[in-house]
């Protein structure tokens, strides 16, 4: 499905006012109030949140545009500002080949796309010639193990699993032992979805990390937090809590093939400066992309991805 189609929809109304505003603004320097408001609304509708949106608009308020400037030019200028904020956090996922195994813990709230993302990452790494082991650390949700097994089959990765309801920390420990014995390059540990405000479940996650460290004090080498692009301002609280509990060092934003734009990422990038290592753009095994700040920023403003 064409995931760029959405870019042009839903902006018609604010667009009009922006066009009129620009027409009035050209030559006088600076956009007028209606044009600025239209831009601000576009940002809010993309989930940037009211405070980030208004700050960005303040930044562009006194900007002068050329006589020939049209609506697209104004949007592009703003997209560039946003891309500049996001540029420092674009960093591809790169497990260290020297480690055997490089341990990756994947965490996030329920249904955000953790298991699917593990499958996609496994495919990308396998294509790179790495040997992957997956640990079915979600011992809670019905058929979570079977789901990961299918991803294991699809990507030719071995899956280590335990009994239903087993202790995820013990399973992670076993999986790391198995990965070592196997000489695997990367161990990816799936975890059950958990809301960040559930203290007991967050403590369970911290325990997984503690137990892994008994075998390898440097592990997990990556802790990836999977965020759903459909999520609004609550994503900030998710990042804050997961980061403080398990030292998250990378983000994956999923479901960017939908109509949600994931603009809360701008506030997250400013506040936490966590690298965005990949984005999810579909349910298939290949639907993982590198995070491009320019493309992402342009999509927030309803612009086509290429310049």
């Amino acid at each position, binding site marked *: 499905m064409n995931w760029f189609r959405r870019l042009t929809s839903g902006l018609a109304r604010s667009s009009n006012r922006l066009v009129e505003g620009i027409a009035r603004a050209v030559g006088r320097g600076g956009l007028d109030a209606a044009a600025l408001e239209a831009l601000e609304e576009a940002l809010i509708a993309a989930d940037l949140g009211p405070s980030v949106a208004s700050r960005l608009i303040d930044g562009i308020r006194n900007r002068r545009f050329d006589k020939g400037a049209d609506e697209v030019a104004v949007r592009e200028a703003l997209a560039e500002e946003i891309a500049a904020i996001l540029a420092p956090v674009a960093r591809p996922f790169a497990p260290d080949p020297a480690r055997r195994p490089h341990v990756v813990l994947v965490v996030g709230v329920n249904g955000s796309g953790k298991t699917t993302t593990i499958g996609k990452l496994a495919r990308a790494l396998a294509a790179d010639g790495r040997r992957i082991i997956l640990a079915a650390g979600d011992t809670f949700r019905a058929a979570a193990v079977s789901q990961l097994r299918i991803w294991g089959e699809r990507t030719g990765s071995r899956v280590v699993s335990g009994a239903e309801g087993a202790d995820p920390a013990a399973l992670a420990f076993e999986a790391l032992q198995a990965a070592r014995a196997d000489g695997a390059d990367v161990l990816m540990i799936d975890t059950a979805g958990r809301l960040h405000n559930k203290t007991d479940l967050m403590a369970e996650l911290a325990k997984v990390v503690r137990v892994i460290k008994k075998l390898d004090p440097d592990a997990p080498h990556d802790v990836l937090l999977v965020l759903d692009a459909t999520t609004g301002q*609550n994503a900030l609280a998710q990042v804050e809590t997961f980061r403080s509990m398990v030292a998250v060092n990378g983000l994956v934003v999923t479901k960017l093939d*939908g109509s949600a734009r994931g603009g809360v990422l701008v506030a997250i990038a400013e506040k936490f400066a966590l690298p965005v290592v990949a984005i999810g753009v579909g349910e298939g095994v290949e639907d993982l992309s590198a995070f491009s700040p320019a493309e992402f920023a342009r999509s927030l403003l309803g612009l086509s991805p290429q310049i």
Partner: protein
Amino acid sequence: MFETLTAKLGDVFERLKRRGALAEGDVDAALREVRVALLEADVALPVVKDFIAGVKLKAIGQEVIRSVSPGQMVVKIVHDHLIDTLGATAVEINLRAVPPVPILMVGLQGSGKTTTTAKLALRLTQRDKKKVLMASLDTRRPAAQEQLAVLGQQTGVVTLPIIAGQDPVAIARRAVEAGAREGYDVVLLDTAGRLAIDDELMAEAAAVRDATKPAETLLVADAMTGQDAVNLARAFNEKIGITGIVLTRVDGDARGGAALSMRAVTGRPIKLIGIGEKLDAIDVFHPDRIAGRILGMGDIVGLVEKAAETVEKEEAEKLARKAAKGEFDFDDMAAQLRQLRKMGGLSGVMGLLPGVGKIKKQMAEAKVDDRIVRRQEAIIGSMTKAERRDVRLLNGRRRRRIAKGSGTTVEEVNRLVKQYMEMGRMMKQVTKLGQKGVMRAGMASLFRR
């Protein structure tokens, strides 16, 4: 972040220092704050605009009641309008159709459809004594059909046998036929997640609808959803036609503005909410609670019920007896602190308390957060058994030892001891109020500095 809308509006009207009827200028200033509060709570922009316009009509010229401030008055109007928009009364699942009554579950990927299907099945079985059949039409997601089958085993609800290779419409037909043949009251149809802009899959869901004529088509959506809520609700309603909404993950700390967005653009009621991963974690929708959350005004009912849920009944009774006799000790305090963390920590509890704008501000200034609770637990953990029983033992030397043992400071130990005394005193006073009162008073004294 910590400020409540009431506090913000208080500031707006403070500056105006006016009385009497609300004038347009005052209302506009207040509504700018309301707008930001709603946007921060993830209410979608077009819905915010309509909402603000509606409130403005109601507010201008409204007499301010003597005993309340203009800020409170506006909050009241906003709150009432919010409840009106959300739907003032709970709407039940419609089962008035010839059995087996088909119910279709639809929504985005990962929103909670399969889990909600099992929860609803359990609820209809236990509460309404219905004979329920569940069927998964999800032929796409890995192990989706198996997931529902496992949930069927866990709930004791029958699931339609899986036939590999069948398409969703064929499975739906087979489910309804089996339902009729085997005398089921309700047939729940779980579907694969789909994007609002995925025309092909939306058409597939419409085909399932046409084949089964569901009495209810429920849109299952996540309470954490942002601005996209309007797009998705509108698309599902236009392309499939929904009769109600189920809001999941209300047990999280999202403000839940999506509830208002979806209700406003579809006109369909929010029928149920998901409040946990367990299969009994489903409830009817209480508009007043979500309204308070969206506005950041807190919810005393929610607090009390949440407290009552979490506290083991006996523990509370034991505590009440001990408090009455003045035997409340540090072990009890530690139990309370654990309880506090279980309830989602200070921030969780604070989100539920009414009128805590000021306290929250103080707490933010004093940097009170969940880490402090942990430090307090560590302090108690470093006391000897005898010290935990008898506060009088805690002389300077012992306090220094405890501070060292727990990696805290003597000041922190002193503060904890002070809070402990305060807590014991408060609990003694309110024992008359029963368990809930004890819990609340105990917690409240923890927030005091």
